[in-house]
């Protein structure tokens, strides 16, 4: 029987720890355990056999720590170590079968055991998602080829890394995939995910079983298990440590004995685990006791929880009776400023739109970055990765371009929402496979080749057709959310009625969750928010599960919170009261602000962004020329602050607050210029980067902000930037000044390498450098043109070059 045939049908047993057993057998500190697959194969095989004889069904090959990064320092390749590891499990299984003829019906499987790479993924960390994927891919191809029966991804604690591993497994083998993660006692992954959020993601990606291992003992896992059984529709695997680590004589040990361990594991099985084993500190003796105690137990049947859920890296959002708010603002349709931001590749603009919506109460953010003249797949990837780095909400990838869909979904850290598919054959054929692969909750528009039906029945028919077709692709109803479609009531007086009735029947007859782009109802009418809010309330009352709306619209959100209070989904009206009091505070705050209106230079010197913006708008309204504002108000004010900073009369926070205020002023100027069809003038391009190997970004970002204020066009290449990338940018964009930042002595060498590469290629650009360990002497030594000891130094230098006409 295959592993998959038994999984979830009968209790199955993993093996236990490997590391401690190897140490007992002489593995030294500094020695890589996996090299023993080749150096001491008999020892490894015997451990596998001990576990099999103790009753384990699955023996994990000694491949946990194998990866390309680790193999760099070894004499063996990934393939060699993995192949040897799998071979030993298979030999152990064959020998046990042969030697114990009585127990030949005991199912035994060779497991390709994959652990964490041990490096954090970008954007916070060092390696890219694709690098992580490739690293796992290499292991999986080798393990599959060597004949593994299943893949165990274990002791992982970063949902993004887990996703890379699962995709690598799914795309490069047909083996069953089991994922067990390391949670802390509060049920959190190290990167912030919780049980519900990763479960949603993993079910979406189509893994075969999910569970916990390492980190905790069986007792602690008992407390955590209900969180998993509550949301998980797959068989549950639990491989605990033999207790929490305790330090004895300075060494870490695990001290739960086999009997006590087995008793606890028995309770875990009673609570819903169907595959159990052990991790750190557990031995064949532990597993033997577990098998003795639990071998005859019935397991709880695996039930589909029928949850419609999306997740971000750190939390899950469920569709339920209480409607959700999907923020609609990250979308260029009808917004000239947004379109311009996309053309300018102004990601900050997009991020701020996202953050505002998060603050205003959105639960999910729609992300649409489609413009005919841009590379949408590329921008979608950037937007998704950028937004999820700083915003906690789940995202709805919104595009009609299937390449952009795939890119957005692939790099998304969680279980995404996808907008959208419709009832056209072509749409279903292209979108369903992508949605299935990445486990997206898919928005289905009730239209097809014949257009948008004018009747309720017509729309329901299309909905049913999509449900049926989705099922053929393996997409369950719970992953479909129907959009009943809204046509403006100004062109057809029955339009709202049709939508509402369709909504009601989809929700209560077909049993699907629903979504609507609510504000479409009022196109062509004055005072649209009046109609919108009324319609929104009616729609929610007719079964709307999620409204795609503007969370910054107070009337809409008021309708939303009121609705929740009225249907009894707001405990003691707490949320309603909290929001109502927030709104009440606002006018008062605005009034205070009005009374103390400042001039632009005062606002910048004091570092007050809103006042600076207002003051600039006022100057522009008085027809003051943009250049005059910049040269006679803004720059002199910045100079005052900069001088104060250099004389140590003002300090970094003040300098930066002024920088932010100046930035706000520039926004007003830019908006005004673009109204006149002009662009702001640049004093010259500067490339800025934190060098390869270095991940500390803030110094570079401070310098960038200040230089921008002084009118330089900044090309920010980010952190950990390869010298080649810097060279290419300088060449292609004909840049005359490069700013490099490095924090540590270990990365200053890459600063030197970058400068050398620029010089070798005959580029005469100037290079300025800065960072914690640098000194003038050091800067001279590595061939920099200028050493900036603080952020203002770089401004002075750039201005000098500009004045000399060298930029």
């Amino acid at each position, binding site marked *: 029987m295959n592993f998959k045939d038994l999984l979830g049908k009968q209790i199955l047993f993993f093996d236990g720890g490997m590391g401690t057993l190897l140490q007992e057998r002489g593995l*030294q*500190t*500094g020695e890589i355990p996996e090299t023993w697959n080749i150096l001491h194969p008999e020892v490894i095989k015997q451990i596998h056999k001990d576990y099999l004889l103790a009753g384990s069904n699955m023996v994990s090959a000694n491949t946990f720590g194998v990866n390309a990064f680790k193999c760099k320092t070894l004499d063996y390749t990934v393939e060699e170590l993995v192949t040897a590891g799998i071979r030993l499990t298979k030999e152990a299984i064959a020998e046990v079968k042969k030697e114990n003829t009585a127990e030949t019906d005991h199912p035994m499987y060779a497991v390709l055991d994959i652990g*964490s790479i*041990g*490096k*954090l993924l970008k*954007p*916070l*960390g*060092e390696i890219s998602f694709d690098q992580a994927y490739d690293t796992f891919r290499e292991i999986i191809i080798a393990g599959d080829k060597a004949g593994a029966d299943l893949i165990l991804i274990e*002791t992982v*604690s970063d949902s993004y890394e887990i996703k890379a591993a699962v995709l690598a497994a799914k795309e490069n083998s047909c083996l069953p995939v089991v994922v067990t993660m*390391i949670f*802390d006692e509060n049920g*959190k992954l*190290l*990167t*912030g995910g919780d049980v519900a959020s990763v479960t949603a993601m993993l079910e979406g990606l189509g893994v075969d079983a999910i569970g916990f291992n*390492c980190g905790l003992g069986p007792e602690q896992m008992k407390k955590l298990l209900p969180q998993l059984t509550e949301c998980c529709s797959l068989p549950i695997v639990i491989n605990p440590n033999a207790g929490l*680590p305790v*330090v004895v*004589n*300075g*060494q*870490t040990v695990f001290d739960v004995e086999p009997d006590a361990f087995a008793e606890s594991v028995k309770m875990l099985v009673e609570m819903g685990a169907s595959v159990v084993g052990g991790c750190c500190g557990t031995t064949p003796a532990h597993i033997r006791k577990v098998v003795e105690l639990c071998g005859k137990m019935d397991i709880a049947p695996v039930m589909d929880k029928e949850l419609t859920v999306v997740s971000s890296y750190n939390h899950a959002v469920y569709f339920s009776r209480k409607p959700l708010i999907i923020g609609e603002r990250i979308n260029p349709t009808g917004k000239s400023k947004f379109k311009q931001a996309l053309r300018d590749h102004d990601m*900050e603009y997009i*991020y*701020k739109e996202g*953050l505002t919506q998060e603050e205003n109460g959105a639960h999910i953010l729609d992300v649409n970055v489609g413009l005919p003249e841009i590379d949408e797949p590329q921008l979608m990837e950037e937007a998704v990765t950028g937004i999820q*780095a*700083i915003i906690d909400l789940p995202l709805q990838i919104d595009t009609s371009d299937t390449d952009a869909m795939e890119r957005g979904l692939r790099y998304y850290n969680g279980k995404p929402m996808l907008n959208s598919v419709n009832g056209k054959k072509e749409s279903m054929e292209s979108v369903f496979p992508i949605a299935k692969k990445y486990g997206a909750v898919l928005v289905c528009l009730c239209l097809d080749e014949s257009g948008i039906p004018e009747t309720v029945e017509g729309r329901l028919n299309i909905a049913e057709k999509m449900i049926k077709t989705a099922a053929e692709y393996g997409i369950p109803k719970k992953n479909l959310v129907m959009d009943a479609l809204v046509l403006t009531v100004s062109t057809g007086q029955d339009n709202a009625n049709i939508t509402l009735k369709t909504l009601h029947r989809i929700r209560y007859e077909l049993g699907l969750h629903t979504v609507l782009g609510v504000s479409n109802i009022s196109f062509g009418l004055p005072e649209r928010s009046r109609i919108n809010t009324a319609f929104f309330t009616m729609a929610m009352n007719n079964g709307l599960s999620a409204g795609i709306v503007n969370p910054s619209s107070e009337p809409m959100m008021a309708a939303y919170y009121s609705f929740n209070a009225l249907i009894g989904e707001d405990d003691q009206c707490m949320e309603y009261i909290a929001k109502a009091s927030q709104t009440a505070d606002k006018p008062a705050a605005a009034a205070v602000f009005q009374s103390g209106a400042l001039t632009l230079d005062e606002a910048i010197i004091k*570092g007050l962004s809103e006042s600076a913006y207002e003051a600039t708008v006022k100057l522009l309204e008085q027809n003051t020329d943009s250049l005059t504002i910049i040269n006679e108000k803004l720059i002199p004010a910045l100079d005052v602050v900069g001088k104060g900073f250099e004389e*140590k009369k003002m*300090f*970094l*926070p*003040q300098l*930066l*607050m002024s*920088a*932010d205020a100046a930035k706000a002023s520039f926004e007003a100027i830019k908006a005004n210029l673009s109204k006149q069809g002009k662009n702001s003038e640049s004093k010259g391009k500067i490339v800025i980067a934190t060098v*390869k*190997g*270095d*991940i*500390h*970004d*803030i110094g570079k*970002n*401070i310098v960038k*902000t200040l230089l921008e204020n002084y009118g330089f066009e900044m090309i920010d290449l980010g952190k950990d930037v390869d010298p080649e990338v810097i060279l290419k940018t300088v060449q292609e964009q004909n840049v005359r000044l490069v700013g490099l930042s490095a*924090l*540590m*002595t*270990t*990365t200053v060498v*890459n600063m030197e390498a970058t400068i050398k590469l620029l010089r070798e290629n005959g580029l005469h650009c100037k290079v300025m450098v800065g960072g914690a*360990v640098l*000194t003038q002497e050091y800067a001279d030594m590595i061939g920099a043109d200028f050493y900036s000891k603080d952020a203002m130094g770089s401004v002075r230098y750039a201005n000098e070059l500009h004045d000399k006409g060298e930029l």
Partner: protein
Amino acid sequence: MNVANSEIRERINVREVYRYLGYGTGTPDERVKTLTECIIENLANVVKPRNIYKIYDCSTTESSVILTSGKTLSFESRNLAANVAQCTRVVLLAATLGIEADKLLQKYEVLNIAKAAIIQACGAACIEAYCNILQERICNACSVDGKRLYLRPRFSPGYGDLPLQAQKIIFEELECTKRIGLTLTDSLLMYPTKSVTAFIGLTANPQGCHINKCEICENTECEFRNSSF
């Protein structure tokens, strides 16, 4: 060892934050003060501090330090040897505030660079406070039979002549990645960034145990140097 976030909050030295921000011994204006207080509050709420440590017997020569506990680890460094010369025991400690501090920083680098700079400084003060609490507790736990032990200043890879390469040994020995989610890059930087690995000497000699780490640093031009050295 569990330390409550509220306890860390109590121990954050706001004067250190101001020093990191360039104020020296001066005090910022009310606005920066208020902002700093808010950020400390926020940071102390979101961080997920974790630590792992082991305790060793220690012996030193002039230029090396040998730690033993079942197995033996040795480090070549005159400065480290001087730091722990009178110590019978040495603690290897790894502590991190977790990824949350980096997340917060990343967010504000986009939103508000002034706040980001303050978060950076508060994060540094926060991990210092956390390490201070940890080392005191470890020291107290080691002080048995009426024999009080005293702490030498923490000493980390990269200080003086102790190379950053020592990180590799510490990471493997303490299983930092698996136990507390701390990772080491190829260029030997730590992720999450608000993290510390350190040697902490424990000595029966109470003398000279409150030495600032600026003592062994060669960069005498450093803006943040404690002026008494």
